């Protein structure tokens, strides 16, 4: 059993102005795939390196399984790590790269050979075992790095942006393969990325980080659907979630949010805040070119740009001067400069405080 418990970890680099990680608490369940997601400089890699033992926290505790590993060096933590740069040893063959950790454990030659071959098999590296890394492509080197980690059968597998150095097509392919692989080896995994698509596709849960803190931890669809803050909503999803600023006031047991001269209905609790943000995903707005019957809760918008993207149209429009992105079917006939009406799916509307961008109850 190797649950990871991170308890109140903080870290400031020597000479660093701000702290890299501030009071982070996070529990990763046994065999869970946890993704740390955030923009560069948010502290996600620092957090991962503290799990690995390559950095030590200023305060707080890290527990892996039943052991407090906070002060332990990497080799005593039962972890394996895949680096962004692959970090494959150039002076060793693929076989010896994968065997490196087992050799350090002084495993018998027979066992080393068997385990290296089996994990090389999982990553389709058998034809390359006797080659040197310089004779491999970037994708193959990354496979070596992953094989070298999983051959250790670690309690915890740590991955630091393992796909970010691959080209787009290879990344897509290897992402699916990685997901399958990690599912097969059943190990607790912490995966760092700044790519929200990777996070959504791979994670059992996603921990969204910003400025050294964890903002939201939830299943991918929840993070996507119910962002805890405006930041999460705009960081995850392509296009980012739309946010419309409005005034809320209680109205007859409900709340009314006025956006310019238009308004939409909201749950009563939204009226807690005077200034609110209305969050809605581009695909949850239904666009039509004709005015709907009154009272349907549609918002009128000016079409600014229409972009055909193959599978759909991306329409950029302005509601009372606020820019909104809308995804429509490709047969939606609309010209820039004309008016369209946007009907939000009511259960997809999210309500946030404009003051600090945090989600309001009832949304």
């Amino acid at each position, binding site marked *: 059993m190797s649950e990871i418990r991170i308890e109140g970890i903080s870290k400031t680099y020597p000479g660093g102005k701000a702290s890299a990680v501030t009071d982070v608490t996070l529990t990763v369940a046994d065999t869970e795939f946890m993704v740390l997601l955030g923009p560069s400089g948010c502290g996600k890699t620092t957090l991962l390196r503290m799990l690995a033992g390559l950095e030590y926290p200023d305060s707080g505790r890290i527990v892996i399984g039943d052991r407090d590993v906070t002060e332990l060096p990497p*080799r005593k933590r039962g972890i394996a790590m895949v*680096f962004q*740069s692959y970090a494959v040893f*150039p002076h060793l063959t693929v076989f010896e790269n994968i065997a490196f950790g087992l050799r350090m454990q002084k495993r018998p030659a027979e066992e080393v050979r068997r385990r290296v071959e089996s994990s090389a098999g999982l990553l389709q590296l058998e034809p390359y075992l006797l080659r*040197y890394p*310089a004779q491999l492509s970037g994708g193959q080197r990354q496979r070596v790095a992953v094989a070298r980690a999983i051959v*250790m059968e670690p309690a915890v597998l*740590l991955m630091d942006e393992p796909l970010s150095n691959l080209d787009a097509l290879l990344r897509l392919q290897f992402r699916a393969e990685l997901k399958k692989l990690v599912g097969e080896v059943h190990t607790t995994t912490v995966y760092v990325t700044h790519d929200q698509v990777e996070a959504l596709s791979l994670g059992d849960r996603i921990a969204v980080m910003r400025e050294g803190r964890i903002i939201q931890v939830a299943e991918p669809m929840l993070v996507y659907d119910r962002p805890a803050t405006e930041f999460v909503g705009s960081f995850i999803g392509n296009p980012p979630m739309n946010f419309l600023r409005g005034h809320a006031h209680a109205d007859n047991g409900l709340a009314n949010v006025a956006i310019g001269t238009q308004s939409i209905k909201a749950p009563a609790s939204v009226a807690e805040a005077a200034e609110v943000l209305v969050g809605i995903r581009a695909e949850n707005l239904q666009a039509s070119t004709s005015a709907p019957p009154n009272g349907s809760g549609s918002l009128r918008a000016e079409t600014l740009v229409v972009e055909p993207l193959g599978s759909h149209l991306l329409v950029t429009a302005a509601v009372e001067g606020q820019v909104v992105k809308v995804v429509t079917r490709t047969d939606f006939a609309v010209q820039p400069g004309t008016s369209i009406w946007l009907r939000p799916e009511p259960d997809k509307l999210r309500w946030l405080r404009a003051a600090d961008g945090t989600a309001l109850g009832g949304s």
Partner: protein
Amino acid sequence: MATASTAISHRRSPPKRWNLYVAAVAISLFILIPIYLIAVAAFTPRAVLNGFPKPLLPVAVSTDTMQAFLSSRGVGQSVVNSLLVGIITLVLSTVLGAPAGYALARFAFRGRDSFQLLILMTRAFPIAILAVPLTVTFINWNLYDTLWAVALVHTALALPTTVLITASVFVAVPVDLEEAALTLGCTPIGAFTRVAMPLALPGLAAASIFTFVLSWNEVFASVILTVQNRTLPAQVLTQLDNSPLAYKFAGGFALIVPALIFIFFIRRYLFNMWGRIVR
């Protein structure tokens, strides 16, 4: 290093590449012609050598000259002495210098920049000024007229370059590789010896060539600190005035050859490590 420069030359337009070749040939000739002339002279019979003009081509080859030089008193022993001093210097300066270079490359410690500057200060003292105090000190330590005395001074002379070269070598070895080794079960020392060290070998070899050649060529300290146990340059230098022309050429050739052989053997580490340049 080598890949970078070839990559650039491939991208060069043809005229520029010609310039590069011309420059390379000119530099090579500048170095090779004197070596060639000394070699020819060293293997020319004495009679021909004493004539005029001197032969530019090996018209009459004979090993008489070399044999006479090598069998003259003290030469054989001084060659051995020079080799020993060079090897001791190489080992000492690597053992002392490589860790310092590693520290400079990997750790941000207080006073790092001043340390880097101070290292070079040892070269700021002219050895002529140090000669007398060194002699006195070595006499007191019973090291005077021993190979150790010469090797210690050579180590002091070589250390600054060893430290700075090894620092730049270790900077070129990605930290990630050592960290990967740590996560795979290495101690910090294990990560150094199993990963950083092998990858740094070409650079360390370059530093050691430099050190060895420096020691092999150094003559001032050797002359001052030894009386009986001369190194080859000291031996040749002190015999130079009262020896025939043949002896000088043979001596010069004997001084060049071991350095060339050493570089020849260690050269592959410079250009061709593990079949590819470390990336």
